[in-house]
């Protein structure tokens, strides 16, 4: 039925199977859109946030997907600026994942502000001292760059490409892609950093506060480092999942291994500086405010296990797997390492977002527990459905993987 729209020389499932698959995800997405409308209509009282937890599941989801989407800019940097040719097989898909992550972050942010209709005030009345202003500008600009990187791929759809205007446009976009990759890298470095800076500058919140270099707290650099370490692992993870679902090899194994090796080296570096940062925080920053390290953790929900899970289980272990050639060459170990690293970065963003606010600053105050409402869960989880829809459509109709035909020769 849609054969003419499918790239030449590749095998796709039947239209019926595809539309059934899409119907499932669109149903989930529809539920999320309905919930989002409920929130816009009734207000943020539909969430479980309050005046202690001004930030909650949505900001965690935002920061999480933005960190995971860093695979797009960093792969772009490696492919177009450092010219690592093996990554050409992956770059289109990395851009799509980045596009999904950033667009969903923007959508969630719109939902998360109390006055969505005033969202444009961020551009109109910018406070140059606020890290959030930097975030607003950089995310919007980088999302524009990602759209520019995604558009040529859409224009390469078999039917669209037949149009001479689309053909020329796509060609010219490709010519300029290295420039966009460089711009994207610059913007991304800043907003990943600004997101970390958002917490590090909270000097009256000892859990998050960090000193730093010039106007940037150390969290600025830690967030960049963690994003470039983990972003590529998420790209690998989603690629592996797609290969499993489609039962095809879409990317040469060597490409995944090269990216995994780079991510592993970066993750090792990140874990070392994260441990150093935690040590300095515990021994200098907290005591200066009359607080102890032990006071920063409480009970089960905010226990010390979070720190061990983040740095140990989801930091050191995946780093060791990824830098060990024998392990990263094994698909199961690679998936495990990428999944752990991805969970780790989301955990890190959760800790900075929620635990910062949960920790009582007054000596006469107590810990409060935050658990998202079903409305927050549904809208946050919608990112998965949204991602599945975009990836499914892109995989079926766009030439996302340049080596797919070579890796999957037609059966005789």
């Amino acid at each position: 039925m849609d054969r003419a729209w499918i790239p030449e020389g590749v095998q796709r499932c039947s239209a019926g199977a595809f539309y059934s698959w899409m119907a499932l995800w669109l149903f989930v997405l529809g539920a999320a859109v309905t919930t989002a409308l409920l929130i816009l209509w009734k207000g943020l009282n539909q969430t479980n946030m309050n005046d202690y937890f001004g930030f909650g599941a949505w900001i965690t989801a935002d920061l999480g997907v933005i960190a995971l989407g860093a695979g797009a800019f960093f792969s772009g940097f490696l492919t177009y600026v450092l010219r690592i040719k093996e990554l050409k097989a992956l770059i289109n898909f990395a851009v799509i994942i980045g596009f999904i992550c950033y667009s969903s972050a923007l959508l969630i942010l719109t939902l998360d502000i109390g006055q969505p209709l005033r969202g444009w005030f961020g551009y109109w009345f910018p406070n140059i001292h606020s890290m959030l202003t930097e975030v607003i500008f950089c995310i919007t600009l980088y999302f524009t760059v990602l759209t520019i990187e995604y558009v040529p791929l859409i224009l390469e759809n078999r039917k669209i490409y037949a149009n001479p205007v689309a053909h020329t446009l796509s060609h010219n976009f490709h010519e300029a892609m290295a420039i966009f990759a460089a711009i994207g890298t610059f913007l991304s470095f800043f907003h990943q950093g600004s997101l970390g800076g958002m917490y590090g500058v909270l000097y009256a919140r000892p859990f998050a506060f960090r000193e730093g270099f010039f106007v940037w707290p150390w969290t600025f650099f830690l967030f960049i480092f963690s994003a470039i370490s983990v972003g590529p692992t998420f790209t690998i993870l989603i690629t592996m999942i797609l290969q499993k679902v489609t039962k095809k090899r879409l990317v040469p194994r060597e490409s995944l291994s090269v990216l995994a090796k780079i991510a592993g080296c970066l993750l090792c570096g990140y874990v070392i500086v994260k441990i150093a940062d935690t040590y300095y925080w515990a021994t200098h920053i907290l005591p200066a405010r009359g607080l102890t390290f032990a006071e920063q953790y409480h009970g089960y929900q905010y226990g010390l296990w979070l720190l061990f899970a983040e740095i140990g289980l989801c930091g050191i272990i995946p780093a060791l797997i990824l830098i060990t050639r024998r392990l990263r060459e094994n698909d199961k170990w690679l998936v495990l390492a990428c999944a752990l690293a991805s969970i780790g970065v989301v955990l890190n963003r959760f800790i900075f977002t929620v635990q910062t606010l949960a920790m009582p600053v007054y000596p006469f105050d107590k810990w409060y527990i935050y658990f998202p409402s079903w409305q927050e869960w549904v809208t946050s989880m919608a990112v998965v459905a949204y991602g599945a829809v975009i990836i499914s459509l892109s995989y079926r109709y766009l030439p996302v993987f340049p080596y797919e035909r070579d890796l999957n020769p037609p059966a005789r």
Partner: protein
Amino acid sequence: MSEHHEVASKEKYGMVIDLDKCTGCGACTVSCLSENNHYVREDESDKLRSVAWMKVYKVTNGEPFPNTKVAFIPRPCMHCDHHTPCVSVCPVMATDYNPLTGIVSQIYTRCIGCRYCVGACPYHARYFNWWDPVWPEGMHKLLNPDMSPRMRGVVEKCSFCNHRLQKAKDKAYVEGRRDLKDGEYVTACAEACPTRAITFGNMKDPESAVAKLIKSPGAFRLLEKLGTQPKVYYLSNESWIRESGDNALGRKKTARPA
């Protein structure tokens, strides 16, 4: 952000609360609610969503009966004077530090409701409007015309009854004066306190009651180690109350919230 805005001004308003005089009656909270056009929801049991610009914390010395001691800590916005945490983080400049008066105020019509300021404030003095304000039938006629009500989705906070400063200045202008007399501009909470525990005034006027009280030996501020330099001071002769105001390494935290 006062270090960025230091200007020659004869005014810097502050508050002193004598905790040894405070009975925890809550008159300050009620007068604040009334003065600043707060609405009260049918169910206010969720205190983490309940707006109270002047919140009264109850603390105890942690000792068992009969040695138990109780104190009340009324907590308005601290109007932090050094690198005001909420001002620097606001992405749309909806939070304002007035360098002429030292008052930190919120521009409700500019606030986008991102709540970054709520997270930045260690004193929990900022409140988000989770619901639209609703008053009982006919009560809107009793609202204070000098104070704008806030809409759903924006953050609000104690403004040191800034509108009262405008009124006092207008009166002084009509009388041909440029400067206000001590006590001419006071907040609603200070006016309502039955034990006169709250004193408000110009800290830069050496003759003002506030300027004298902040030099008292029992004066302290909440969470001073953070370096926010609050303009709200507390007085107490009880050392355990003064110690409750800040974190100290190794000290047993005995104080409890209300």
